[in-house]
């Protein structure tokens, strides 16, 4: 098989794949919530990202950050990642698996439902998470994010 033939086959394959799988996106709005023990009221967008990829691990008052996530496949999770982390759920999942399998970190705490995540944030000191706007309760604090 000559090189031109291989190049042609590869090109045809790639074009075909693009046509087969159109991109998707879009979801409800997401808010960042914390436990009431957290003194911060605002966060920079960059700080949210660094918290959820494990690069910032403590609040300004040295309280440990306990962040929580929703599972892959959840639309709120996808929206949160796209808006704040700039990654897809698959990329985010692979990032954390890399941390786990190279001995650098533990896996983030994950909840199957927004309700479960909300309860965890409300009851855990230093906790931070995200939910859709319709889930907000008086038990947690909603942070203002500076973009």
């Amino acid at each position: 098989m000559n090189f031109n033939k291989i190049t042609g086959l590869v090109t045809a394959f790639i074009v075909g794949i693009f046509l087969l799988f159109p991109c998707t996106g879009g979801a409800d709005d997401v808010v960042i919530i914390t436990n009431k023990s957290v003194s911060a009221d605002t966060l920079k967008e960059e700080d949210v990202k660094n918290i959820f990829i494990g690069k910032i691990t403590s609040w300004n008052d040295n309280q440990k950050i306990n962040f929580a996530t929703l599972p892959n496949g959840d639309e709120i999770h996808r929206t949160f990642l796209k808006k704040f982390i700039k990654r897809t759920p698959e990329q985010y999942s692979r990032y954390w698996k890399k941390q786990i399998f190279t001995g650098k970190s533990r896996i983030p705490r994950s909840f199957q439902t927004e309700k479960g995540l909300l309860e965890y944030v409300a009851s855990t000191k230093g906790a931070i998470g995200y939910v859709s706007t319709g889930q907000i309760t008086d038990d947690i604090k909603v942070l203002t994010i500076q973009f």
Partner: protein
Amino acid sequence: MNIMKKFFLVMIIVLFGLANQVQAMEFDDLGGIEVHGFISQGYLLSDENNFFADTEKGTTQFNEMGINFSSDVTEKLRLGVQFFARDMGTIGNNDVVLDWAIADYRWRDWLGVRAGNMKWVNGLYNESRDVDMLRTPIFLPQGVYNEAWRETSALIQGAGMYGELPANKVGSFSYDMQYGSMSMPVTGGPAKLLKDQVPGGLKKYYHITDVELESVNVDETFADAVKWNTPLEGLVIGGTYWGYDFKAAANTYIDLNALKSDAVAYQQLVPLRGVPAALLTPTQQAYQAALTQLDAAGLGAFYTDVNNNTASTVGLGGTVTQTYPTLFRVKARTLTGSMEYTWSNLVLAAEYMQTTYNVDIQNTIWKDYYRTPDGMLNVPEFDAVGYYGSLSYRFTYWFELGLYYSEYYRNKDDKDGETRYINYGGLEPKHRAWSKDYCMTTRFDINENWVLKLEGHVMNGTAVIYGADNPDPIGGVAGSQYEEDWYLGAAKVTYSF
């Protein structure tokens, strides 16, 4: 299968079953100890050349498995350990080894310390190269992630510092500094690689049949990496400087019968020395030219010694080998430059790596060849280079396509292999000097736990394969076992939790 292997396999099966039951990746029931594992099984097939295993026939000797345990002892201190086993042809053989095992104290986000067996930082992907599901392709680009060095460049045993330094408008910087030693087994990859380092000229004139590694003493290993998370979202630029120094003792096996024959022939040629060409027949002139070549190679005294001292080995029939101790001293310093850009489902990456080698090889039997009293060969410093460009795109949550092109050169000043061909006495083809690899790979994420990959490589050149895996010349013609253009196919399935 020994007891350790059996125990490891049973433990993995039990824990994989447990992971399926709970569908969770945290084991609070184990007192806060997290357990994760993976097991991969692959298949390799090449139309020519054996790629680190018997791939020409097709092989399933291509797998990895690991299981790790970690726990946060305090808010800042974490302990973890991973056991690992792999098989790739004659490398690994599924022997269970202690992989990473670390104590990690994160004092501040900008300063943490680790001690123990740490995954070796280099470029974008070296730390995770043992775990298949963490990347798109089955094989990372060989230009930078040479499979030949995988065993030795996986871990640094020692201590290190790491941290994250915010830099406001210019993004942030991550750093990782490691210092210690490394493990280099006397069998497997490094042993095969050292065999390939003995110049072919020596093999030819001294009838070296094998080089067997006896021991390795690593003096130091270090790796310093920095990554710049640029203000352009998704763009990461990094650099790693790493190196190691080691000494290796090996035995060189020499075919004395063949050597003696050459020595006897040499003695018969000696009378031709200095005779004017006009007085010689064409055949004698050819013999005289051969004599001149052997004298130029410094073999006269050696052949005379052989002729005088090993008479009893002549005429025995078959191969009579004798061992001679050989010492390798290797110092390597590598610079890796990396760039990765992620934009939505598209990931672009490119890396360049250059390794400067200082190698000494010492064996008293070839002191005449090198005209040094102690038989020391100071191999002139040389640079191996490799680079690649890659892209991957995830079309949907279950399908990802990846492409890359990679080049590798054993010596950047001899990319066409001309000099190497001469130094190796014509025993190896010129294309042993380079490797060019066009790869297309597909990744199917069946679910959160299962990944299937299929991948094809169009290869040109044979620099990244071992001579030891390709030992048999076709029709006895030296170097004919290597094919310049070849194809490699790979399939792999991985389960992880």
